[in-house]
């Protein structure tokens, strides 16, 4: 419609009203509707899982879950305090290993030498590793730790989980460091900061919220992993002893959901609910920290 001469424009005023039944308007409406539907569909799995868990697991929520030990076959009651402690302990080990590792690697990738061969290879490896089937991390830790130490242990579980956490921590920390505005980095250099001073005094403090977000997401993922723990920490009915097989929420769910005893199945539901709540809380924390970034 752009080819009107000046004369035409003076004679025919352009029609500015909405034309909802014109083909292109119709197409736009239909496409928008489809995207809305898909966005809603995307929420269904989470909400259906949550509702199911609250319905099936909610009734077993009690204090005993947190201090009790797993019941034997025909017992009633019991809890999984040892599994909660075990999950927290192994995720803690994994974080202690992967967070410093990931952040230091990220500093190299983002600042020191972004385009070097080492960086390119490391970045590629991290991306591949982040898509690694988690069971392979378990197999690796089984060979590298369990066979060497001669026993299933919480250490082996923590190491298996750390392998899964490293790429997430590393890649998100790299992004967070890159997001620090270049003028701010130049200002630090211009003030006479050494590269280490720039990093510690200016860049990292600004990048910390982004790094924490990545760490929390990695922790949340590790907390829910089952397969790597089956090969490394196994399970235990007793309280944590790090050199011996260790209970975790994820493996407890896996074990008990297949049992023929109603008490154990109820416990599996309750453990699922606790695990989802744990991940949920971690996500909220990471969002809260992420939002503080721009203050």
């Amino acid at each position, binding site marked *: 419609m752009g080819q009107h001469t000046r004369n035409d424009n003076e004679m025919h005023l352009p029609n500015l009203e909405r034309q909802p039944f014109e083909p292109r308007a119709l197409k736009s409406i239909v496409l928008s509707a489809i995207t809305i539907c898909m966005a809603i569909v995307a929420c269904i799995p989470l909400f259906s899982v949550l509702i199911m868990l609250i319905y099936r697991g909610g009734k077993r929520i009690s204090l005993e879950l947190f201090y009790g030990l797993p019941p034997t076959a025909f017992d009633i009651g019991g809890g999984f305090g040892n599994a909660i402690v075990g999950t927290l302990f192994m995720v803690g080990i994994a974080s202690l290993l992967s967070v410093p590792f990931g952040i230091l690697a990220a500093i190299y990738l983002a600042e020191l030498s972004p385009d070097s061969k080492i960086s390119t290879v490391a970045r590629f490896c991290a991306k591949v590793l982040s898509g690694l089937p988690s069971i392979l991390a378990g197999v690796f830790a089984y060979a590298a730790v369990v066979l060497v130490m001669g026993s299933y242990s919480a250490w082996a579980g923590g190491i298996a989980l750390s392998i899964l956490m490293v790429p997430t921590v590393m890649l998100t920390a790299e992004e967070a460091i890159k997001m620090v505005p270049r003028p701010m980095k130049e200002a630090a250099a*211009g003030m*006479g900061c050494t590269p280490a001073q720039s990093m510690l005094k200016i860049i990292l403090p600004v990048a910390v919220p982004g790094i924490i977000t990545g760490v929390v997401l990695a922790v949340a993922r590790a907390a829910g992993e089952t397969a790597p723990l089956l090969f490394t920490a196994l399970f235990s009915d007793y309280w944590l002893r790090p050199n011996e097989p260790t209970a975790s929420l994820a493996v407890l769910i896996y074990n008990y959901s297949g049992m023929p005893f109603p008490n154990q199945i109820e416990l599996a539901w309750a453990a699922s609910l606790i695990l989802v709540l744990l991940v949920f809380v971690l996500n909220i924390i990471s969002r809260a920290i992420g939002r503080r970034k721009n203050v």
Partner: protein
Amino acid sequence: MDTTVTPVANDAALDSTEIALDCQADQIFYSDFLAVRDSHVPIARNQITGFIGPSGCGKSTVLKSINRMNDLIPGFRFEGKVHFHGVDIYDKKVDPVAVRRNIGMVFQQPNPFSMSIYENVAFGLRLNRYKGNMDEKVEKALVGAALWNEVKDKLKNNGLSLSGGQQQRLCIARAIATEPRILLMDEPCSALDPIATRQIEELMVQLKEHFTVAIVTHNMQQAMRVADQTAFFAVDISRGGRTGYLVEMGATKELFEDPQEQLTKEYLHGEFS
């Protein structure tokens, strides 16, 4: 005055003053690209030296070479000398970090750190392990940057909460707090409104009492208003690339009223930009 026209400094105009820093940029490369050639810019003590010229003429490149900021750019290579207190700052033995602590810089975009106003100004002092009265130094720098009255009641607020003009004056305060010998300013007003620009210009004129200032500006009126010496750069496209070089340099008044080079005349009359 010397009547032979050469693309080097107009020494006659500088006779009465002392040279704080002498930048001889024979060639500056970014990887294979020759960005600047044959530019000899002496910076006179306690004066303002303005760098003017069209976009891409290398004036910022030369300025940033003076405190080795360009070292941060991969592929950067400087051939020539920058004499400063008896040393060539491009000598292998010289630590660029030490150079930057003595030659301060104010950037085009105000870039305060994400910390309190006070800490922004104290930052350089802490870097240099200053042991004296910090409050006094911070106040002095903020007064020197004509910002004290506006911020004295909110020194704990984040530097980023200030307006653009205030942020730039905060950056100036941060730069002068450590009392550098030379202050480099890379188009410090280009991101600011006219009122903030005027404040910064007035501030620059005050600063030259204590500091030596070199400023890159896009704005010829600004150079006329604040600079004592002006260096005019242009782009040479004759050799295929776009290489910047110093066309002429002299006392601002003389350069603007009686330029020696045809190219300078044309530029000052707005015949190209």
